[in-house]
């Protein structure tokens, strides 16, 4: 890539400047202001993180800067990229800017690429949008870009379709498209939210390296304070469509001046690291739960194989784990490690190909349908998606009452209502939500409704599969608090599936680390997640960014040294 192709960025001044930016959405219920009075700037070579919870307007700001707002949005104020006004610009002006001067990396690599077009061709399209080069040259450059973003065998991968790549590789392709014309400004909207921590760390390293190589300014939109600490030079905090605090990353994360920033940071679960003072937030319930209480669910040497013949997939391979009365067992691992499959085996939803599952001391394989149903009434389930896991056609009260209708048929309608009201009290929801539809509630409230439904039969086991990963940190904290309190009160065992090691460290007494369908290691959270025995767990922990820029800087250096050492060892 020669010098004349680098964008004509003005020598001085910010590459992105927002002045009193406002965005209003026109909806059926009228005009909804999403963003107002936002002013910020990004200098060349600088990374500004725009943080906030969902609905704070941070993504809207990013899209406005690209001129990519939805059709029902109206932007006011000014947004200039390299001196060119974006607000009110026509398609020709915007198309000339996008992909050349300013590029964007999106949150969801699974859907960000055209499923029917080969990835090399999609990268070539961005090149040819802005440069007068032949299809052949563009294809060759696309391969080169794939190599730059760290895709192995780029010449072969260029002719792959997106579905043939992993999530991390797809995100690398999106990044390759974004840097194809060496933009002066890169806008990254939650670029690593959909990825595993280890992949997240690699993608952040990649973005950091590319930005440093070309002096690109970065606007990083994220809700993850660890990512902010890892990547950003400056931080702007958004709340209800406005910026409440802007400053250098050390100031904002370590000495926040605004009340909201303080609250937000307090709610972020922090991964405790060996050598640090082990904080008092470490799970205390371990002491209250008898160490050798009766097992509530026990998986013994369980294997699960999906499919047959050559296409068969071994999802679980000799997994043994036990959840005891009153304790919380955290099940962690990267996507595809088998943690959700294991939880479904525990629920009796997947029959193990090999091994035994005992629920409340009874072997599930030996039970008949009626007895099995009775056993199942002793389990409550909370799933990840607060929208999809509640029937939109039922009221909240009906949703919560459904397990009673199935398993407690003798109960009168009046008693049922009483039980529903009581369990809504327990999850700290007002009783009148029973008459409302799930869609009228917020994500956190809906997840509490799921919890109420799971607990209405007073189960002995609660299976929670990523119950808070769709929620904002402040809401996550409230939901986890409710679960802990009820567990202390009702004494149920909890199988807690999560990819978030910090949350597991705070919430679970014991942890099982899974990898590729096997149990990599297990033990008390305090031990296993502070002084892990296996390299895998160590790598997993090292990849978690902590929301302290000073600590994170040294963690990153340490991780990269370890990785480099591992590499030389491997080649030696």
């Amino acid at each position, binding site marked *: 890539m020669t010098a004349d192709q680098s964008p004509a960025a003005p020598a001085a001044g910010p590459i992105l400047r927002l002045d009193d930016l406002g965005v209003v959405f026109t909806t059926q219920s009228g005009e909804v202001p999403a963003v107002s009075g936002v002013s910020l700037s990004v200098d060349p070579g600088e990374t500004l993180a725009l943080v906030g919870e969902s609905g704070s307007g941070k993504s809207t700001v990013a899209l406005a800067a*690209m001129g*990519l707002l939805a059709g029902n949005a109206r932007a006011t104020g000014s947004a200039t990229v390299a001196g060119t006004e974006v607000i009110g610009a026509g*398609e020709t002006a915007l*198309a*000339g*800017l*996008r*992909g*050349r001067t300013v*590029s*964007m990396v*999106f949150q*969801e690599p699974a*859907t*960000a*690429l*055209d*499923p*029917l*077009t080969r990835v090399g061709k*999609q990268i070539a*399209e*961005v090149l040819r*949008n*802005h440069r007068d080069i032949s299809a052949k040259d563009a294809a060759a450059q696309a391969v080169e870009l794939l190599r730059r973003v760290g895709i192995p065998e780029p010449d072969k991968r260029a002719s792959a*379709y997106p*579905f*043939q790549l992993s999530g991390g590789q797809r995100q690398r392709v*999106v990044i390759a*498209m*974004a840097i*194809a014309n060496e933009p002066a400004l890169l806008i990254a909207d939650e670029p690593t939210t959909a990825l595993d921590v280890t992949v997240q760390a690699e993608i952040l390293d990649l973005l950091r390296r590319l930005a440093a190589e070309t002096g690109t300014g970065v606007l990083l939109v994220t809700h993850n304070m660890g990512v902010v600490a890892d990547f950003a030079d400056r931080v702007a905090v958004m709340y209800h469509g406005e910026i409440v605090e802007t400053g250098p990353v050390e100031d904002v994360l370590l000495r926040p001046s605004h009340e909201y920033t303080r609250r937000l940071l307090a709610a972020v679960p922090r991964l405790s690291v060996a050598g640090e003072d082990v904080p008092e937030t470490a799970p205390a319930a371990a002491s209250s739960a008898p160490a050798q209480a009766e097992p509530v669910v026990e998986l013994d040497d369980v294997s699960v194989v999906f499919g047959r013949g050559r296409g068969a997939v071994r999802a679980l391979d000799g997994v043994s784990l036990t959840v005891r009365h009153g304790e919380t067992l955290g099940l962690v691992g990267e996507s595809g490690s088998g943690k959700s499959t294991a939880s479904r085996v525990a629920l009796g939803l997947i029959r193990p190909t090999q091994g035994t599952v005992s629920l409340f001391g009874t072997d599930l394989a030996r039970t008949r349908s009626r007895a099995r149903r009775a056993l199942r009434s002793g389990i409550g389930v909370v799933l990840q998606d607060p929208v999809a896991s509640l029937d939109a056609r039922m009221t909240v009260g009906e949703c919560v009452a459904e397990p009673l209708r199935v398993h407690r048929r003798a109960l009168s309608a009046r008693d049922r209502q009483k039980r529903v009201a009581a369990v809504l009290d327990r999850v700290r929801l007002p009783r009148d939500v029973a008459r409302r539809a799930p869609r009228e509630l917020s994500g956190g409230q809906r997840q509490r409704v799921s919890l109420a439904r799971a607990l209405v039969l007073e189960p002995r086991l609660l299976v929670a599969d990523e119950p808070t990963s769709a929620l904002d940190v402040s809401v996550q904290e409230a939901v986890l608090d409710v679960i802990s309190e009820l567990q202390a009160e009702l004494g149920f065992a909890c199988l807690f599936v999560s990819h978030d090691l910090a949350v597991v460290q705070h919430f679970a007494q014991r942890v099982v680390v899974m990898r590729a369908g096997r149990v990599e290691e297990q033990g008390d959270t305090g031990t296993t997640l502070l002084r892990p025995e296996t390299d895998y767990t160590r790598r997993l922990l090292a990849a978690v960014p902590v929301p302290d820029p000073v600590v994170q800087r040294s963690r990153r250096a340490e991780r990269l040294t370890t990785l480099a050492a591992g590499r030389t060892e491997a080649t030696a």
Partner: protein
Amino acid sequence: MSTPTYLIRRALQALAVILIVTIVVFALLHALPGGPARGILGPQATAQQIAAFDHEQGLDKPLPVQYLYYLGQLAHGDLGTSYTLNEPVSQLITERLPKTLLLTVLSAIAGLLLAVPLGMWQAVRRNKPVDYVITTLSFIAYSTPVYFLGLILVLVFSQALPWFPSQAPQGHTLGQVLSDPQGLVLPIAAGAASMVAVFSRYMRAATLENLSEDYVRTARAGGSRSRAILWRHVFRNSLTPVVAMLGYYVPVLFGGALVVEQLFNYPGMGLLFWTAAQSSDYPVLLGCVLIISVATVTGTLIADIVQRIIDPRVKAGRA
């Protein structure tokens, strides 16, 4: 699944489907009251005459026996002989099928060529006057019976404006039919109308869905213009569901041909089927239904294969 395995599997499935269709149709036809003898011998026929006819045609044997006999003949390519026309059914069908295929295939092509761009245009101009006008016309075209629509076409474009003949070309061979392309215009228009209506709706919905996909935003963020995105990305992605629907639309097309041929006096399968149905000519009816079911099954098979070609995920079993 590799392509040969896939094709063999699908072909076997297709055979099974056709077999089931023949059983169902055979049973239904024979369950009808009256029977063919009354229709052929006339209202004056005595009970003995009817019994003699039934015996001669094997109609007094138990149904399963009749069916097996029919299948046995079918295996030898013998579809039986028409009761009324005294000609082998296979010959009747070979004579007329090409003409019907010509009519339906041309209607389908004309319909799609109009429907796909119309649907995309509507999606791009969603909730603008153009969209409303086309939507209204679609609903009218869809809800008007083909027969009525055909009559209107004749009244307007043949009677009021003498542009096209009101009768389809009458030749026996394809060549003769094709030598009078003017005469084909109105039958094709009548046959394609509902197709345009239905498929422009599908295409509109599919295009709208794809326009709101993330990959469109990615392409815009890379500096591609709306028009380029529409044709390079959205068009192909929207076509996949439409192609899938096309296979299921084959029987509807044949059903349309039934009416169109009758209306424009076009000597194809539809007209044959129509006359056979009126005179309970079992062998002809069965033969026609068999051909239509083969056409339908082949249509879906082709649609699935085309989908495999358009969408690499289908072949990989990921979609």
